[in-house]
């Protein structure tokens, strides 16, 4: 295994790319031999952030979603960026159940899921400039690696 590794990916904000983004980050994190639960946590958190970029940041328009990820030691760092409309009040947005689309089937639980499933969550946003979500997760010791990779 490489001691450090990183990757960058970008794709248009089509909802079909939500599952693609999950698979990409999951496959990258797989290099640390995560447990199935750790892998599911990562995929879920990435899905939340990418979905937010698609539905909130670009709202009906099509923009670019960018993901950078790095493996540093046994920690996955992942950053999801959009250049969409931005968040006016990040603190409010991060509250459980807060959603700016209350009429729809949005639950307002996206940020709460990210926070719960990852070890850290940082949200940087500027109106009309876009939003960057940074998350980290430590992957527990490699249980069943065969050693040679």
């Amino acid at each position, binding site marked *: 295994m490489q001691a450090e590794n990183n990757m960058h990916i970008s794709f248009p904000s089509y909802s079909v790319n*939500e*599952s693609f983004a999950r698979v990409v980050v999951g496959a990258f994190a797989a290099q640390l031999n995560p447990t199935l*639960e750790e892998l599911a946590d990562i995929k*879920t958190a990435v*899905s*939340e952030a990418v979905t937010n970029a698609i539905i909130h940041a670009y709202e009906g328009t099509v923009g670019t979603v960018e993901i950078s990820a790095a493996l540093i030691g046994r920690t996955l760092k992942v950053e999801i960026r959009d250049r969409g409309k931005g968040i006016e009040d990040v603190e409010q947005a991060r509250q459980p159940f807060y959603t700016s689309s209350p009429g729809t089937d949005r*639950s307002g*639980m996206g940020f709460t*899921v990210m926070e719960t499933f990852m070890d850290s969550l940082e949200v940087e946003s500027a109106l009309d400039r876009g939003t960057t979500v940074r998350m980290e997760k430590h992957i527990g010791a490699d249980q069943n690696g065969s050693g040679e990779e």
Partner: protein
Amino acid sequence: MLIRCERQGTALKAKPAGELDHHNADFVREELEGMLKDEGIKELVLDLSSLTFMDSSGIGVILGRCRTMQKRGGKVSVMNMSSQIDRILKMSGLYQLINKIG
């Protein structure tokens, strides 16, 4: 995404298969709302055993169907979810509104 539905008395048992994310949420909502037009249905039982993924978009879909059922004095139950989905449902407080069967 595919949903198998089965009427059992006044209950509708629905088994969505695949990944319940935002991309598939509209489809699942519309399929379920289509079935729930039948006001004779008083309970929606969601068998989640074939869901391979669910994020907060799934919470929204279930919450929305809770509202539909509550309007007619009915309820929503869930069963056979993976431990990951169980954690998401717990986190969201949904178990205060829906039954967990089994």
